[in-house]
């Protein structure tokens, strides 16, 4: 069974559940994806399928990708990723949202929104300094180590810097609804990145449906 699909974040909304609670949801367009290649243990050393999502005009295609797509006999596609795991899918097949059903749990990977150069409080959740009583160290870095021993700053010390615009996976998100006609997945909660950002949607590794 195929373990995942590619998609695109459309935006957030809300629905009402059977207990009349308001539930925040993210709408994700998932598939249809074209199977471009199948990797096998014998040939590649691991098993996976390569999927392509969302067609684009041929003129936007660059040469390397264009030649590759010609080789696998596929139309121009914007987003190409591999999904690990053995499947019976062969190149040329189309994968749709139907691999998921209501109540499933999924892990969703995307690229987070870039925050630019962010301070330590925002980037790493530092507590910051005192707000008043003459304190002038509100959001400052403060001390980053000791003196002659160890005489250096430890590796991995959290400091201000570029934040966001990185790969983020949110685990165990619940599928509220699957709309086959519009290739829509309705996911409970938030998904990383901008509306229109590309996503990899995989079956949850930690949580299974019905638990």
């Amino acid at each position, binding site marked *: 069974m195929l373990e995942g699909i590619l998609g695109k974040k*459309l*935006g957030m*909304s809300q*629905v*009402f559940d059977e207990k*009349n609670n*308001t539930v925040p949801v993210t*709408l994700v367009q998932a598939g249809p994806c074209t199977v471009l290649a199948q990797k096998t243990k014998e040939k590649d050393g691991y098993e996976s399928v390569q999927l392509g999502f969302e067609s684009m005009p041929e003129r936007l295609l660059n040469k390397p990708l264009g030649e590759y797509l010609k080789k696998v006999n596929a139309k121009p596609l914007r987003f190409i990723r591999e999904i690990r795991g053995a499947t019976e899918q062969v190149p040329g097949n189309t994968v749709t949202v139907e691999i998921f059903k209501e109540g499933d749990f999924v892990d969703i990977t995307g690229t987070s929104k870039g925050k630019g150069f962010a301070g330590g409080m925002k980037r790493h959740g530092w507590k910051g300094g005192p707000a008043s009583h003459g304190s002038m160290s509100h959001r400052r870095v403060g001390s980053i180590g000791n003196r002659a021993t160890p005489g250096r700053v430890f590796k991995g010390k959290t400091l201000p810097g570029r934040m966001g615009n990185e790969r983020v996976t949110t685990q165990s998100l619940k599928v509220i609804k699957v709309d086959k006609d*519009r290739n829509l997945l*309705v996911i409970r909660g938030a998904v990383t990145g901008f509306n229109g950002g590309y996503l990899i949607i995989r079956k949850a590794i930690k949580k299974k449906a019905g638990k």
Partner: protein
Amino acid sequence: MLQIVRDFEKERMKKDVPAFKPGDEVRVHVLVPGIEEERTQIFEGTVIAMKNGGLRETFVVRKLSYGTGIERTFPLHSPIVKKIEIIKEGHARRAKLYYLRRLKK
């Protein structure tokens, strides 16, 4: 907002909502939470604000109860809001009537 998100919301929106506006006096029939049977309560007062749009639209109703101002925010399209009746039409000159809070005290 993307058209597909708008369509998604439109399908889930109530179609029989009366057209009321801030300043109107309304009677809201709302489900009592936490019980098995379906019982409704009535909340009656002035609409002082309407916020958001689409499926996420909410409105705030204010009433005076024994001299104390009570405000309740209802999600317009939520199934807990069973029925909305307009008792009296008002003519507010602004969209948010938050000044009523200070006025009535």
